[in-house]
């Protein structure tokens, strides 16, 4: 049996790798989970004079999607967000992060706008309050204004099924 030892060692390693694939080593629990979403008041893209803050969403479960026109990875999830918006399952608020070239309005007109409202975080301050490390990031915020989930990287249908759907069901959406 000695000659099978290398093979067996490899099989054990492979099983660990397989399990490891579904784990995310970078996913350190966010300190904001279970805490109230940090308050802010930002101008709304495309509607001069209007401002938006999380308190306006009280009583609703909603998504805060941090994105930017210059972010290529955000384009990956754009199609899925459009689908989601059309289904009307949950309102998506966009946080237009560090859009220095002021391109958000034009781009959304071009490719379609999945957002209920887009808040304009030009200098990235609100991003800092939320602990944004990059785009895209998506937060689920519940009826009481508590952050329930933070997802880093684009939302794919698989991620949606695995992470978002169970939580939204639990929140009664």
């Amino acid at each position, binding site marked *: 049996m000695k*000659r099978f030892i290398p*093979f067996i060692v490899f099989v054990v390693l492979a099983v660990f790798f397989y399990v490891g694939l579904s784990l995310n*080593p970078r996913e350190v629990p966010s300190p904001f989970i279970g805490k109230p979403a940090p308050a802010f008041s930002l101008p709304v893209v495309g509607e001069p004079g209007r401002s938006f803050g999380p308190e306006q969403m009280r009583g609703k479960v909603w998504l805060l999607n941090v994105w930017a026109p210059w972010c290529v990875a955000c384009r990956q999830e754009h199609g899925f967000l459009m689908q989601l918006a059309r289904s009307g399952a949950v309102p998506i608020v966009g946080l237009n992060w560090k859009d220095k070239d002021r391109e958000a309005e034009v781009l959304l007109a071009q490719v379609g706008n999945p957002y209920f409202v887009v808040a304009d975080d030009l200098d990235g301050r609100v991003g800092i309050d939320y602990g944004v490390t990059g785009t895209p990031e998506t937060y689920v915020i519940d009826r009481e204004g508590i952050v329930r989930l933070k997802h880093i990287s684009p939302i794919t249908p698989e991620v949606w099924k695995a992470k978002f759907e169970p939580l939204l069901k639990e929140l009664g959406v």
Partner: protein
Amino acid sequence: MIPELGHFALIVALLLALAQGILPIVGAQRGNAAFMAVARPAAQGQFVFVLFAFGCLAYSFLTHDFSVENVARNSYSQLPAIYRFTATWGSHEGSLLLWALILAVWTTAVTVFSRHLPEDMAARVIGVMGLISSGFLAFLLATSNPFLRLVPAAAEGNDMNPLLQDPGMVLHPPMLYMGYVGFSVAFAFAIAALLSGRLDAAWARWSRPWTTVAWTFLTIGIALGSWWAYYELGWGGWWFWDPTENASFMPWLAGTALIHSLAVTEKRGAFKSWTVLLAIAAFSLSLLGTFLVRSGVLSSVHAFATDPARGVFILGFLGVVIGGSLLLYAWRAPQLAAGGGFGWFSRESLLLANNAFLIAALGAVLLGTLYPLFMDALNLGKISVGPPYFNAVFIPLITPALFLAGVGPLVRWKQASLPELAIRLKWAFAVALVSAALLPLTLDGMNFMASLGLFLALWIVFTVATGFIDRLKHGAGSLAARLKALPRAFWGMQLAHFGLALAVTGATVVSNYESERDVRMNIGDHVELAGYTFTFQGATPVPGPNYQAMRGRVEVSRDGKRLDVLQPEKRVYHASGMPMTEAAIDYGLWRDIYVSLGEPLAGGAWSVRVYHKPFVGWLWLGALFLALGGGLAASDRRYRIAFKKETQQAGLAEAAQGQRA
């Protein structure tokens, strides 16, 4: 249009790789010459198409085609041309394409330099490489297409990761991949030998130069990576035991063991099954490295965008390649005849011990690298394993291997006499031991780790010298003539071992005697370190092509004499907003002076880090000797003669066939 041509070329390359992988192996099993003859043209054709695809991607980068997603993500309109070219392999997709290209280069080299092999052996070797290539090309096309379009096209790119915008990064990945992928040749030889059931000394002789060349490239690649980390990350460290570094170090350890084990198999016919296993292990660890870095299973400073679908694909591929070859090994192992016997004290036994220590060290590195994954998978919490673990287990395991590196070459094959050797080496041993114990005392008192490292380095140097003296005692002619008459294989081994001594010295001295200070400096402030005075003369803004830099001026002087003005930079890259530290280094044989800028503070002051790093350059000097030794050993006369003679024979045979036709 160009990206679509590249995509199409990849598809053609995959089809050729499949033909190259399947037909010659089937042909070799059935003795079908026509099938076997497919191997070379298919491999060379595959190379042409992969090269074309690579050219298309490079063209898209060079011409700023931001309608290609890969370009939009990894390039920028103001990125200098050289980095636009290296950005070709800066992304996940591009680096896999480079992998495939380098595999095609190695395969093509095999098709050219394998004419002296029996036809079925060559067909199997090229076939196995074709199967590996099929896997990688399928992976590229299925999950990581580098030519994907972005609709609508981006107006501007996201820029290349600023860490990679560096001259060191131009050469590091290609060299590393030349090493990683080069082990596929030794692997293919081992699999071909297992398939044919002919594992003999000839197989070991064929594999040896290929293995040595791959190992040489890997050595250069690792050294470049370490040098890059040293001057680019701004902390003056040269090895971090980061998962990605380990991913390249593990194949290196396995490759080092393989080189030594192949020597025994070739010369004495022993260790056959061990050598086969090492050949499989070296390449498997290269693949594993790719998996670890590309799948996101482990977090590392080298994080690339990761995607579980890719991970599943690579894991499946690993399962087929590694699992399959280990099963093949288990099936054939009973047929591997034991080679010539040897005494308990002989070169064979010492090489076996050296192998055992190298593999134990490798196991320790593997365990430390994967431990966080094991814990996470078993739900025992998220932990990370740092340098203290690696230093604590790696040093004790590598110490005996280094000691043996000194003794091994002086011991005869088959049966040697320990007392005789002890008498010959007693002075080398005594002088090394006493000097190593005393040297730290002249600096700052007893230091066991420093003494240990210095002893090993001196021991290797003395035994290398003894090896030369032994060889030069006999023989005719002048000393120069006798030195020239020594075979390159001997030179290669001795230079590589000498390089090891240099690297050990560098690592030992810099780890034990470096000093640093991290201070707030106003304009005109001085700071003293290791006898040097550093004077901060302020920082001024300097625009770069795609970044804005603050360039500091730090004057270095010793005993009132000005030595150098160092200009470290702090850069902020436009596209990503990422800050980067560019250290400034005054290089020297005996020490480096290293200055990097921290953060700007109020009133024109900066936090400044200054380092005094004695002997740090010896690390890379040692790597240079290791690589030089590898190059010399691989170009030994007997390989060249064997190649020339057998090519001529093949040429004659072809000419004869031509006449008959």
